[in-house]
């Protein structure tokens, strides 16, 4: 789940558990980012920032470039121009979980610590006890919710300062999504983990995040506090199915 800082980002924080994230203060700084696939422009001069300990949402329809941004922050995609920097160690929960289906849950977790050289998953088991029960099972045979929990635990194995979560709610039952969102909020509030939550489910995102960016066709078209964006008729119509009284997690 870890990715290197791109384009001259700061060095990843060394050592420590998730509790140390608050001290290390993970940040995201994206400036004038352009990413192209051949002749197609996936991200067109995107600029956004996430401060240490903040939880920020990135909304947008399919094909807006959200996952490309996550992959660029992880160092998987190379930008054509601009910068995508993370202060501290980044972990990335990719869209669709992307586990190692042939390996056990424990092997998935342990490989999550590849970059940080963390081999002991006990801190993840303490946080997500269900994973301890499943540790010998093959990841590919788990339910969607269990797989998302493994992806979550695998990301935490890298002792991140910044967590990029791509489509937490994708394909999951509302109750499972709420449970995972509660874990995310707890990590953010209690341990200071900086979170960029990439979502199409705006109700969920507005319910748990302080600020949000809206990405469409590779460009940031709106940004601001979630309450203000929820009150914006265009955003509400596009992502909430119409104006709402109050966004709930």
């Amino acid at each position, binding site marked *: 789940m870890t990715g290197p800082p791109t384009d001259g980002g700061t060095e990843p924080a060394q050592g420590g558990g998730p509790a140390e994230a608050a001290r290390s203060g993970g940040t995201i700084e994206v400036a004038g980012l352009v990413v192209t696939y051949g002749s197609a422009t996936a991200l067109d001069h995107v600029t956004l920032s996430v401060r240490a300990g903040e939880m920020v949402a990135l909304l947008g329809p399919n094909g807006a470039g959200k996952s490309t941004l996550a992959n660029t922050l992880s160092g998987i995609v190379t930008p054509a121009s601009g910068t995508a920097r993370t202060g501290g160690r980044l972990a990335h929960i*990719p869209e669709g979980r992307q586990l190692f289906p042939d390996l056990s849950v424990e092997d998935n977790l342990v490989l999550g610590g590849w970059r940080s050289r963390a081999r002991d998953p006990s801190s993840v088991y303490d946080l997500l006890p269900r994973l301890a029960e499943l540790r010998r099972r093959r990841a590919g045979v788990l339910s969607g919710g269990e797989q998302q929990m493994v992806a979550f635990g695998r990301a935490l194995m890298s002792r991140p300062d910044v967590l990029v979560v791509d489509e937490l709610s994708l394909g999951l039952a509302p109750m499972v999504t709420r449970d995972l969102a509660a874990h995310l909020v707890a990590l953010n509030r209690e341990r200071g983990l900086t979170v960029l939550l990439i979502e199409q489910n705006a109700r969920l995102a507005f319910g748990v995040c302080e600020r949000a960016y809206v990405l469409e066709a590779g460009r940031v078209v709106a940004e601001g506090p979630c309450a203000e964006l929820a009150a914006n008729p265009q955003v509400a119509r596009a992502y909430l199915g119409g104006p709402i009284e109050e966004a709930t997690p």
Partner: protein
Amino acid sequence: MREFLTYLVNGLAVGCGFALIASGLVAVHRVTGVVNFAQGMFAVVAGLSASWLLGVGLPHGVSEVAAVLIATMTGLLTGLIAIGRRGTTPQSSLIVTLGAGVLAYAVEIFVWGDQPRSFPGLPGSLTVAGVGVQRQHLLVIAATAVTFVLLSAFFGRTYLGKALSACASNPYAARVVGIDVTTMGLLAFAIGGLLGGVAGVLVTPLRPISFDSDVTLIVNGFAAAVFGALTRPVLALSGALLLGVAESLAAGYGYAAYQTEIALGLMLVIMVVQSTRRATVLEEST
């Protein structure tokens, strides 16, 4: 009966050689998705190198180990050419490995000549159940068994082995967690070279090897690897042993000229039956 047992043991030894080639193919394919048609060349390089090193006076043991190391480096070099450039598709890499195998002919002829080479293996024989068995045959079988146990432990128990398996399981996820998939692919090619090298030094005392021996080795090794769906080493081992025994029995009972055809025909029938069974299982499960 005694004849049959003799052919059986000979066949198992030859099959073990094919199994090592097949396991190299499986190791490379699992991690990179590339069918490495240069796999037979690694065995040829090792066999010719060992013969040459013994010829210049190096002792047994040192020569074989050095030959396996040369094959391992050849595997790494082949990997660099085949997958070193980012974005190369497995199909393109396959063609590159074919080209590397053909190019190797010129190098091998230049360095070692075009005549078959061999070297003495373990001398003497043992009597097992009333049948005389060459010590070299037993060495090949034992070394193959040890190699497969070590491979299984490496992929199943070690962190590096699991990282290699992770690359095979989901290359994108491997990159997300920070595993360098290209480096792992190169490591897989080096392992392929090592396995091919072990096959080469074990089989050359049984069958003299020349620059073009890779064709027989890769045809049989590939058939065995396909038997294991290019992903399952133990099934590939079973297929290789079956091939080796079929070839040995065919040669022993007077059909030496057709031994490869008989063995591959048998393999074809098994694969057709296997695929029909898979299709039936799929139909029943949907």
